[in-house]
């Protein structure tokens, strides 16, 4: 295992995720800025875009809440998951956060502050190599997560109501405009993970499955009808996108999880093939 390469790759991802606004998010913010006709809300969107320019140029974190450093690891058929690999990733996280002065926001029961243990989710693919995604999640938005265990025969309207209500309850606390991740199916724990995973992929493209895409669009419209807007100032953009991920579930239930991201939706991925 090429430990050095893994450490340096993760370190780069830490810096990229925290200082460079994702292109898809930036694109949707620019569209919102151009389209918004509530002047105060538009100015707030302008400040968000200006913030991204400064953060990138000066390598300052987009947000002071540099989050819990969550890592998604997608391991290919040729990858051996070992303690050494996990330790190397941790090392890259520690170095990246410390070197750039990103805030240590993780606290343990002894009140010790650190960047660890970061949370790792491991998935498997048939491709070669492994993909590491660093996903710093701020808690202003994480605190607004919601889970509901529905009956299997629940109507689409009731699910929509629950999701829209989750956003309404978040109000403007979690830094709108939001990106709303929704997980449907699986178990109570895995549907919330699906909701978070929904935020990793590009958010500016409609879902491949057209019926899922239609559902996302109709939720997007319902959420934007709340008129919370940037800083709670109103306007057309309470959310930039809604992303749904589904999984099979038990015949006796239908778990639905909502994971809200602030406009500072941060993640960076890299695939390592020779390791």
């Amino acid at each position, binding site marked *: 295992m090429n430990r050095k390469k893994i450490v340096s790759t993760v370190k780069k991802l830490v810096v990229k995720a925290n200082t460079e606004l994702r292109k898809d998010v930036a694109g949707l913010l620019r569209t919102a800025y151009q389209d918004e006709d509530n002047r105060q809300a538009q100015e707030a969107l302008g400040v968000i875009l200006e*913030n991204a320019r400064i953060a990138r140029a000066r390598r300052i974190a987009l947000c*002071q809440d540099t989050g819990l450093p969550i890592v998604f690891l997608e391991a290919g058929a040729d990858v051996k998951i070992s303690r050494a690999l996990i330790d190397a990733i941790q090392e890259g996280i520690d170095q990246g956060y410390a070197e750039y002065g990103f805030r240590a926001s993780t606290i343990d029961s002894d009140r010790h502050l650190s960047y660890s243990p970061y949370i790792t989710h491991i998935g498997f693919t048939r491709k070669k190599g492994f993909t590491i995604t660093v996903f710093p999640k701020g808690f*202003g938005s994480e605190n607004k997560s919601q889970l509901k265990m529905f009956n299997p025969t629940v109507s689409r309207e009731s699910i929509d109501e629950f999701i829209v209500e989750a956003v309404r309850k978040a*109000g403007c*606390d*979690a830094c709108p405009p939001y990106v709303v991740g929704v997980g449907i199916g699986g178990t109570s724990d895995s549907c919330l993970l699906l909701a978070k995973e929904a935020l990793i992929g590009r958010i500016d493209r409609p879902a491949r499955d057209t019926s899922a895409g239609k559902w996302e669009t109709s939720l997007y419209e319902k959420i934007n009808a709340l008129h919370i807007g940037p*800083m709670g*100032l109103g306007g057309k953009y309470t959310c930039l996108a809604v992303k749904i991920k589904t999984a099979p579930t038990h015949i006796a239930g239908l778990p639905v999880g909502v994971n809200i991201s602030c406009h500072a939706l941060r993640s960076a991925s890299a695939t390592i093939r020779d390791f």
Partner: protein
Amino acid sequence: MELKTPLSEKDLISLKAGQVVLLNGTVYTARDRAHQRFIELLGRTQALPLDLKNKIIYYCGPNIKGDTLGACGPTTASRMDVYMKAMYIQGVAATIGKGQREPAMRQLCKEYKRVYFVTHAGCAAYLRNRITSYRLIAFGDLGAEAVFEFEVEKFPLIVAIDTQGNDIYERLGTSSE
């Protein structure tokens, strides 16, 4: 409109919910654990490490590396609602944060003639450019949750709750409703 600290009672009373203000002068950071410490010290009738009279509290846990201040945007104000009354009794003039507060905060702002400001949430690099200097004041062991003094220049604020108890976020309802 530009304002300079310390804010006089007249300044505070003149502010109206929704108004945009550029602040010049000094603010002090404090978030969850610093507030908890303040309350513990007050409970033991011990002196606070700084006199809170007429001070502006900025709910912020900045990024700091060595001597360099990095990102420093606002954190969610409602987590500090439980400490608000005690802070006003100590003389805190205003608070800066993000998000809605419990409806009871409207009454407190009215009663004590105090103001709650919000600033651009999630725009920590942008706000960094409005801070000219900083120093550690107290509770260094709390890391980012320590109390820092920030000198600010044209720091952008919006009055969220004014001294009449008007709240720009009333239209959004509350999370408990």
